C-alpha cells in the first residue's frame, strides 16, 4: 500500500484501539511512524505540531488532525480525526450499555469502587505534570495556576474568566 492517507488512517485506527489512558499515550509511536518509518516530516515539524495541539482548544487527540493536515491536507485531516474517534465511539458506547445492564451487579460496583481512585490519581498526576511543564519554577506562573484552581473551586463561573485574564497578562508580558 503506497497511499499515505490510507497508511496514516490505518495506523491511527490501530493506535486508537490500544490508546488506554488517552490518545496522548500514543504520541511517541505516532512520531516514530510519521518521522522515522515513513519520513513524512522532520522531527522539528512534528514537535511544532505537538506544541500547537497542546496550546489550542479541544481534546489532545487533535495532534492526529494536525499530522493528517501536514501529510495530506484536508482529506488527511478529516480521515485522521475520524480514525481517532471511531474505536472509542464503538467501545465506550458498548461499555455504557454494559454499565446500564450490569451497573447494579456486585462485581460491577466493586470494579467501579476500585477504578475511581486510580482515575482520580491519574488526573492529579496529570495536574502535577502540566503545572511543572507549563510553569517550571517561575512564581508568577505558579500563582496563575493556583489562582485559577481556587477560582474554579470557589465559584461555578465559566473557566473562561481566568483563562482570559491569563491571556491578557501573558500577552502584556507581565507573567
Amino acid at each position, binding site marked *: 500500500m503506497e497511499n499515505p492517507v490510507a497508511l496514516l488512517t490505518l495506523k491511527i485506527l490501530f493506535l486508537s484501539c490500544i490508546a488506554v489512558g488517552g490518545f496522548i499515550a500514543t504520541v511517541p509511536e505516532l512520531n516514530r511512524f510519521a518521522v522515522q518509518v515513513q519520513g513524512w516530516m522532520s522531527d522539528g515539524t512534528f514537535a511544532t505540531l505537538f506544541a500547537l495541539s497542546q496550546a489550542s482548544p479541544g481534546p489532545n487527540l487533535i495532534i492526529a488532525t494536525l499530522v493528517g493536515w501536514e501529510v495530506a491536507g484536508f482529506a488527511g485531516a478529516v480521515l485522521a480525526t475520524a480514525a481517532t474517534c471511531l474505536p472509542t465511539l464503538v467501545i465506550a458506547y458498548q461499555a455504557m450499555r454494559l454499565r446500564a445492564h450490569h451497573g447494579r451487579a456486585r462485581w460491577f460496583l466493586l470494579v467501579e469502587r476500585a477504578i475511581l481512585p486510580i482515575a482520580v490519581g491519574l*488526573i*492529579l498526576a496529570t495536574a502535577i505534570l502540566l503545572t511543572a511543564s507549563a510553569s517550571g519554577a517561575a512564581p508568577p506562573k505558579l500563582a496563575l495556576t493556583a489562582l485559577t484552581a481556587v477560582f474554579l473551586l470557589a465559584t461555578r463561573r465559566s473557566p473562561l474568566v481566568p483563562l482570559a485574564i491569563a491571556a491578557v497578562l501573558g500577552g502584556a508580558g507581565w507573567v
Partner: protein
Amino acid sequence: MRPFHPRALAGGWSRRTMARSRGHGLGEYRKMQHQMPGEPATSVEGVTPLKLFLGFASIGFVGFGGVMPWVRWLVVDRKSWCSAEEFDNLFALASFLPGGNVLGVSVMVGGRLAGRRGSLAAVLGLVAPPAVLVCLMAELYRRHQHLEAVQGMIGALASAAAGLIVAMGLRMVWPMRRSPRALAIVLVVVVAAGLLRLPLVWILLTILPASLLAARLVAR
C-alpha cells in the same frame, strides 16, 4: 452496606417508574434506558442530539489546555445532564477504555441522553470545531511565531489551564475524604504517575489488581 459508594445514597426510584408515573411516552423512556436505576434525577428530558452537539461544540472552542475540566463543567455544573457522582463514575470507566477519558465520557454522556445519535453528536461537537480551528492556527502560527506577545500569551494560558486540571482533581478527591482505602490508592497513583513517571501500562497492571483486592476487603 457500602457507605462510600455514592449510589448507596440514592433512593429507590427507578427511571422506569419515574418515566411512567409522569406519563412520558416510550420515546422518553428510551432516552432514559441507559441511565442506571436509582441514580439521582438530573434534567435529562428533551436533550436532543442537536443540543448535545451545540453544548459540546461550545466547549470545543474554548477548551484551551485540554477539554477535560470543561466537559465536567458543561455536563455537571452548566447543564445538569449528569450528577457529579454519576459523571465521576462514567469518567473512571472511560479512563480504562482506549481513546481516553474525555472522548469516552462524551460518548457515554451523549449516548445516555440520546442514544447512538447522541454519542455521535457529542463527539462531533467535541472534535470537529477544534479540528478546523487547529488547522487554521497551524497556518497562523507559521506566520506569527516570532512575536513575543504570542509566546507570552500561550505560556500564560498553559499555566492557567494546568490550574483547571488541579481544580478538577481536587473536586473529584473531595467525596473520598472519608475513605482511607481510596485516598491511599490516589496517593500511590499520584506518586507513580506524577512523580516517578512510570509507564501507564505498568501502573495499571500493578495497581488495578491491588485496588480491586482493597475494594473487596475494605467496605469503605
